[in-house]
């Protein structure tokens, strides 16, 4: 069992290792121009410096400063989306009347690409955290709302009948409806977390001083591809970590299906 798992992990490494080897070879032999794609070791050195630096490395501070600014925006935007999306999705999924009022407008808004809100958001909120948070919560709202609505709508009638027959009255929403819709709700939240990371970068590309997106944009202006790549790696790592954190939290919510194997 353990040997098998090690084998599986090794299998996952083969492809990246191969690409890395090609890249290192190309850089060493001079086939890859360093102003387009720096050598892997150069990036490693820059990444190390970025991680430990505290000073005025590029635009106002090291990794901790930028990462915490980005995390704050993601956290706030995602939370806003969840606070709005969960209850609205819940009611829309159960009340046809409520859905007939709200849902057409939501679907109309959804067909507007999130990116196209950027100019308007800058006009409204200026350049800074508010714009990022607005874009994130707008974009993350839809997967949460839609999946919650669908999940709640699809709860088998027999579970609701069982709940009522066993004596649940008002509490049936907490005791049956939400746990029953939990797999869909979890999917919606995880999708929204991914969307949040995409939109935080969009918000930060517009000239804010802090944030991992700002690092990328500054590095582009400075013509420093290794810094761009460091920014990308940081975003990927934090995005993955936040997904794992979300899975961990969701696994502890009452109603989580123990048999449901989390994929990814």
């Amino acid at each position, binding site marked *: 069992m353990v040997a098998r798992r090690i084998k599986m992990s090794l299998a996952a490494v083969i492809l990246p290792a191969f690409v890395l080897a090609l890249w290192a070879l190309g850089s060493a032999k001079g086939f890859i121009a360093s102003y387009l794609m720096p050598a892997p070791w150069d990036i490693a050195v820059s990444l190390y410096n970025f991680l430990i630096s505290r000073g005025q490395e590029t635009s106002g501070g090291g990794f901790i400063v930028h990462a915490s600014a980005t995390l704050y925006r993601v956290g706030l935007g995602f939370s806003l989306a969840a606070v709005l999306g969960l209850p609205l999705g819940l009611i829309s999924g159960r009340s046809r009347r409520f859905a007939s009022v709200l849902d057409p407008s939501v679907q109309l808004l959804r067909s507007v690409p999130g990116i196209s809100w950027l100019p308007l958001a800058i006009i409204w909120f200026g350049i800074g955290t508010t714009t990022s948070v607005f874009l994130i919560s707008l974009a993350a709202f839809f997967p949460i709302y839609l999946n919650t609505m669908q999940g709640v709508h699809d709860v088998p009638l*027999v579970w609701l009948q069982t709940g009522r027959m066993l004596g649940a009255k008002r509490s049936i929403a907490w005791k049956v409806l939400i746990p*029953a819709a939990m797999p869909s709700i979890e999917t919606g939240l995880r999708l929204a977390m991914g969307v949040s990371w995409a939109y935080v970068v969009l918000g930060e590309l517009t000239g804010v001083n802090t944030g991992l997106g700002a690092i990328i944009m500054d590095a582009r202006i400075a013509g420093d591809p290794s810094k761009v790549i460091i920014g990308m790696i940081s975003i990927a790592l934090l995005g993955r970590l936040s997904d794992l954190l979300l899975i961990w939290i969701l696994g502890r919510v009452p109603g989580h299906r123990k048999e449901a194997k989390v994929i990814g």
Partner: protein
Amino acid sequence: MDKDPVSKISNIGLTVISISVKLNTGTATSISIIDQISFHAEPGEFVCIVGPSGCGKTTLLNVCAGFTKSSSGMVLVNKRTVCCPHPSRAMVFQQDSLFPWLTVEQNIMFGPKCQDNREADSDTYIDLVGLKGFEKYYPHQLSGGMKQRAALARVLINKPDILFLDEPFGALDAQSREEMQDVLLEVCYRTHTMALLVTHDVEEAVFLGDRVLVMSSRPTRILADIVVPLDRPRAWDVREDPIMSKLKTKIRALIAHPDYVKNSQTEENSILV
């Protein structure tokens, strides 16, 4: 048997008084599903309902349990009018109705928790249905028969006045079905619970029931009310009893050829109605 259920209102048990259910199709005419059905079941009695498929057996059960409103008529359980689902009127469904996010034990304790009943002891009922050792299992880890055992324990813990069963073993294989029939008989006998069971399996109806109500096709009426003259407790080998096979034949004939049976006035059929 008393043919007029109205006179039984003052009695305890299940009393169904001229229940009709019409399906509103939106047009001027509505489809009649159930047409003025009346019957009475004594406390502790086990009544089975059989009939052609699509005849409204499940609808009748849903009306009795309070899940469906009838167009007219009323249902009383122990002198109380049925208006909505209630823990005192338990229902076991054909499909798997256990909550997949709860363990067997948590599923069984769902009812007592909803009613703030702290005295309820899940172990007694887990033992009763033979699920000892599976308390911490989740439904997906159980077989179909074990799931129905858990579903049975989950409603029995509320000490219901009556048990409604809607083809509870219809989705099980033949072997588990017989096993579950034995469990159900045992449980009802020991807890002295009144039961109303809908089934399409004539053998099941005769084996389990004190009485078998044979329904007509839509609009549903009671074709025959047949008393099963077999003693209780019934052991598994009662299935081979000659009385059973005789009754089974009659009921099958009633379901398949109601007019033919009604018109033939032989001694054989005098037991009907």
